[in-house]
């Protein structure tokens, strides 16, 4: 690979005095292939081997469809909640000064660092009927633990840093002069936020939403404790994969995984397109 033919027009790599290209690229590709690509292709190969009719039958199974709908629906709602509160958190952290701001800023990354199973049992204990928050919500007739609402709560926890950490750096880069110019031209604060600031932040907010959404769809550890896991009600797609595996129903597990993977790839593509678009427009 190092000795790419020295043709005039096309080169595999640009010449460089720095050594180690063949070794590092070779090792990286080999490792990537062994750990990621071969196992993932195994999944694709297995689902292709099912054949279209079998795959379609497994994919349109009512329990599978409901689980997918729950996974994508709750992840969507949670990501939307995180867009609102994540942007608010980012705004307050970037623009306002208050005691303990650095600690609060560091705390935002807690969901990245806290193992999902720990988050799962902690949230379940909080929102259980006798838990600190559960007993406050009980009189209002709101049940969180063991309902789809519990899934949303867990996914809000998991997804929050994705939105904050995507939006925050863009907010820090906002040029104050634009706001001042708008203010001198007579714009109200509300107009400045909605007409001047928000359009610039939109790409970051969309990216943050997609990241939180993608993570929420695949989330397993924090959800299974709080969801109650009732089929057709609060059973998420990743859990259904685990259940099918435990039944040794490999084809069904493979089919659900392939659908989720396909949708994830589409989302990844959309995220990349949004990022390219935002770089072109605002970069």
């Amino acid at each position, binding site marked *: 690979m190092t000795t790419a033919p020295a043709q005039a027009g096309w080169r595999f790599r640009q010449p460089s*005095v720095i050594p180690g290209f063949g070794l590092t690229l070779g090792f990286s590709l080999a490792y990537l292939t062994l750990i990621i690509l071969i*196992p993932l292709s195994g999944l694709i190969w297995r689902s292709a081997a099912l054949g279209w009719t079998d795959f379609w039958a497994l994919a349109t199974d009512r329990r599978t469809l409901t689980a997918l709908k729950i996974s994508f629906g709750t992840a969507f709602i949670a990501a939307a909640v995180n867009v609102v509160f994540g942007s608010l958190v980012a705004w307050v952290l970037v623009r*306002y000064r208050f005691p303990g701001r*650095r600690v609060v800023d560091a*705390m935002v990354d807690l969901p990245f660092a806290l193992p*999902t199973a720990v988050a799962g049992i902690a949230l379940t204990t*909080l929102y259980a009927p006798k838990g600190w928050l559960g007993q406050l919500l009980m009189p209002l007739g709101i049940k969180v633990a063991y309902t789809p609402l519990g899934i949303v709560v867990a996914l809000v926890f998991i997804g929050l840093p994705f939105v904050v950490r995507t939006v925050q750096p863009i907010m820090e880069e906002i040029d104050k002069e634009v706001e001042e110019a708008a203010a001198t031209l007579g714009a109200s604060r509300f107009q400045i936020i909605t007409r001047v600031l928000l359009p610039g932040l939109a790409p970051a907010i969309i990216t943050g939403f997609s990241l939180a959404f993608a993570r929420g769809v695949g989330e397993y550890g924090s959800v299974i404790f709080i969801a109650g896991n009732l089929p057709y009600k609060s059973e998420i797609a*990743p859990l259904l994969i685990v259940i099918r595996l435990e039944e040794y129903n490999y084809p069904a597990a493979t089919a659900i995984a392939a659908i*989720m993977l396909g949708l994830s790839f589409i989302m*990844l593509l959309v995220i990349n397109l949004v990022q390219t678009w935002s770089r072109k427009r605002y970069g």
Partner: protein
Amino acid sequence: MADPEIISYEPQHESRSAAVTESRPVRITLTLLTLAFLVIFLLLPLIIVFKEAFAKGVGAYFASLGDADTRSAIRLTLLVAAIAVPLNLIFGLSAAWAIAKFEFKGKAFLTTLIDLPFSVSPVISGLVYVLLFGAQGLLGEWLKAHGIQILFAVPGIVLATVFVTFPFVARELIPLMQEQGNGDEEAALSLGANGWQAFWYVTLPNIKWGLLYGVLLCNARAMGEFGAVSVVSGHIRGLTNTMPLHVEILYNEYNAVGAFAVASLLAGLALVTLVLKTLLEMRYGAEIAATRGH
């Protein structure tokens, strides 16, 4: 990160910034709303872990940590992280060297592939190894004939952990090394250093804090991974149970103190990770790549 020039409560900035900030009551309301949200969603879950762990006193806490199965879960988690993190560290260094130091075709595609595990559900990360090594798997027959146990054993757990923590070090180092450019290494080489010396004495000191940052996040995820490991582990108590899996088992047995005691260790790990991460960002922010998160 913080620009002290920007809006503050101090009166000296008040007149200058009045046109480009919200009124004081709005600022206070938004700040309190944010704090309330973060207390409910982030702080309370953290507090409840320690509260439940010590619900029956310090004695019960340490008694449940001294349990033989718990101790073996802790040992397994440490072992798995001790294998998975160095593997991904070597890969991260190697991939970052190839991608940041050279221009070649397909570089962007390779970078996307490295990030792939982040967009795959942890359960699917485990599933792919079951499909490969399981009894009905592609290699299942062959492995059985040769008496090699991968699934429901330590190798499977390590593989699943390597899969989910795959991008951490690489995605930290690639932007950092791209930012630093090749100048330092080229200077070292022109002064007669060989490639290995250039890496060891020039590149490594340049990237050490970013590297530590990546390893820190990689380790936190490796020790805390649940979904992927859960699928390949087989949940054999005392043998293939990592700490997060042991938390689940204890919790499902209604052993709240036991479950939260193990969880408190993992929460402690998360807190230590956060503190170190924040210190690194504060002191060596410039030497850590601009990309944060994950």
